[in-house]
């Protein structure tokens, strides 16, 4: 009753194949976009930016990237942290080498560099599958972190081995460095998130996405119907790494400002992004956002409730946080193995029939 498609007729093919064919969905999408772009910048402060919005937006891009590779193309990757590090270090080298060039361009170029590296490490996927590929990408993770720690050129020979983002502006507004304004940084990241999601959505419903999904569902069958596995797999690696690289560059330049590769881009990060994709829903754009939101917001919310609200000791709260988040992950995966996105899909199906299911 509240959510229905009766009377929503399509008279053109384009109208029928649009991203949100149901009118209510479309309105919801425009509403969320309007709130995110127009309302949030007015009320955002430093705490909400740095503790909630920035990690949420940036992890969403990383999850989108990994979802293309793992969710759509079926290639398990544990190298996300390493590829984010490539994006971060590429961005750092570009920012320091070409200080006059626009920061947004640097971030996009970092994405392309990461795409090249990702395709290189994706080559083994042509021969090996499943767990074995996961191990090969794990090697990429460790190799890349080791490389950025080992070769001083990557961190411009700084004494501490850290990279730190110099101040850069976009149209006169500071985007990186300490003296930024919350709304400018937020909008900057939001543009990248919306653009990434838009590109991902349209890639995955086009011929390229269909090829990826064919490879995912059964690679031999896909080959027989004329999908070139070399192209499909490498394009998935490249495009996935492109988004992961952008998220890594944003993570370093905009969010943290200073990065130590072993700590920030370690194996934990790879698992975190993989969990986001699995919990959110493999092969779903919405799932990437839901997964990122779950993994970023849940700990912050629990911490604020337990420590700020109930006044519990911080260590007890931190331990409980692990248990609750872990328990919720198990719970959600038992209730809906296909992730939060599937949960939303089922809810929608039910809502369309409600209150007369028969």
């Amino acid at each position: 009753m509240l959510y229905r498609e009766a009377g929503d007729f399509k008279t053109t093919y384009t109208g029928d194949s649009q991203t949100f064919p149901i009118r209510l969905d479309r309105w919801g999408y425009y509403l969320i976009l309007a709130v995110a772009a127009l309302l949030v910048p007015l009320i955002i402060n430093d705490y909400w930016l740095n503790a909630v919005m920035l990690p949420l937006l940036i992890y969403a891009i990383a999850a989108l990237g990994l979802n293309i590779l793992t969710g759509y193309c079926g290639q398990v990757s544990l190298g996300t942290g390493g590829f984010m590090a490539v994006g971060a270090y590429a961005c750092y080298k570009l920012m320091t080498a070409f200080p006059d060039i626009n920061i947004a361009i640097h971030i996009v170029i970092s994405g392309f560099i990461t795409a090249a590296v990702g395709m290189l490490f994706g080559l083994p996927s042509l021969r090996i599958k499943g767990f074995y590929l996961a191990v090969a990408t794990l090697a990429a993770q460790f190799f890349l972190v080791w490389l950025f720690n080992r070769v001083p050129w990557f961190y411009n020979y700084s004494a501490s081995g850290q990279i730190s983002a110099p101040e850069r502006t976009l149209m006169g507004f500071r985007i990186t460095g300490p003296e930024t304004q919350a709304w400018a940084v937020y909008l900057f990241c939001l543009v990248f998130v919306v653009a990434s999601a838009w590109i991902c959505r349209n890639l995955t419903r086009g011929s390229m996405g269909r090829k990826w999904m064919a490879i995912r569902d059964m690679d031999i069958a896909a080959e027989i119907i004329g999908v070139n596995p070399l192209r499909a797999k490498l394009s998935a690696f490249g495009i996935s790494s492109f988004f992961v690289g952008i998220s890594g560059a944003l993570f370093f330049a905009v969010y943290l400002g200073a990065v130590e590769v072993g700590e920030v881009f370690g194996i934990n990060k790879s698992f975190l992004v993989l969990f986001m994709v699995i919990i959110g829903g493999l092969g779903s754009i919405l799932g990437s956002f839901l997964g990122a939101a779950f993994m970023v917001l849940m700990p912050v919310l629990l911490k604020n409730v337990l420590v700020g609200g109930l006044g519990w000791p911080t260590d007890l709260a931190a331990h409980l946080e692990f248990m609750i988040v872990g328990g919720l992950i198990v719970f959600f995966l038992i209730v809906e193995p296909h992730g939060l996105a599937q949960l939303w899909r089922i809810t929608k199906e039910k809502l369309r029939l409600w209150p007369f299911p028969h």
Partner: protein
Amino acid sequence: MKKILTTLALGATLAAGPALAELTFPSLSYRTGPYAANGIPFADGYADYFAMLNARDGGIGGERVNLIECETGYNTEKGVECYEATKGEGALLYQPLSTGITYQLIPRVSADGIPMHTLGYGRTSASNGKVFPWVFNYPATYWDGASVAIKYLLDENGGSLEGKKIALVYHNSAYGKEPIRTLSELATEHGFELIELPVDHPGQEQKSQWLQIRRERPDNVLMWGWGVMNQVAVQEAANIRYPMDQFIGIWWSGSENDVKPAGDGADGYKALNFHAVGSDFELYDDLEEHVWSQGNAAGAGDQGGTVLYNRGLYAAMIAAEAARKAQEIHGVSAITPAQMRDGLEQLEMTEESMAELGLAGFGPTFSASCENHGGSGKAAINQWNAGEGRWEVLTDYIQSDQELIARLVEEDSMAYAQENNIELACQ
């Protein structure tokens, strides 16, 4: 959520009576994760000292101290979250107890105008107050530590380290890499060979590093470790029967937690320290009377007298004394972060002032100035006595090579100033 809760809490206090101005000190602690063994005693000491001040004197200069604890897990992302969550509540001073988080916060505190004190950790070149007006790292820095260790070894070896091999086992992070620059300078100066052995976070796996030590047989091993890495390193050294008295840790690798797991094998292990050990101070009577016996001890309350508990006390004591100094300078009791900075900058620690606080002979004497935020750079060598289960102080405070360190600090901080277009203060 946070906002609502804060507003509610604020509303409740306002309703309860006249508004009390408070001095807010956030404690970015870590009681969980691979570094918890070292984070807990420090956080307990920090909290107990302020609890004692509140109970005994009613705070500092009549203002109660409001300690906000925030768990970082030694993780930089959580550290940033903690910083953003607490800075709005009028935080006067940050002490993150993590070099990684310090690097994150240096630009942020400088932009927000909140002082940060990194007690013997953090960025060494921040001791140049001209470039880093908001950051303090007295009484000693990592480069002081490296210099003191080498000076001690020079002493032990009759004044020459020519042809010796010295290995550095370090946490592969900003923290562990910090001393390399000084040590390599000293290596060329004194003619010893420096072997660098990085250990990756969290440091539970060090077999290959110690195998290399067994093969290369360095005359001495220095260690820049933290958390579980320390325990593993001491255990591994004992396993390969490396002579423990040739093994020297920085002050962050010299607590009871680091040596006890290795049992008798750790006997003779040395570590630097810039404050006294044990609980033989008058202050401990006050702690007992006002905090512990009241059941208000932070954490499990079992850390009293340990090295890192004492360091937590020391950190809190410096914060409290700086706040007192700031109140004195500005003649107000409810100080602002900017006034707190003045207090830190004019802080002077003398034997008398420490004795007055019930901490006679607790740390080295030093005085800060606008240019010098790094203190006097003195540290002593302690040695672990496994039989009696305590640290023994081997030497007096040794003065580091100030000339060399001043030169290195100048180089590094000026490079930072240039990179970030910082106008020099103190002109």
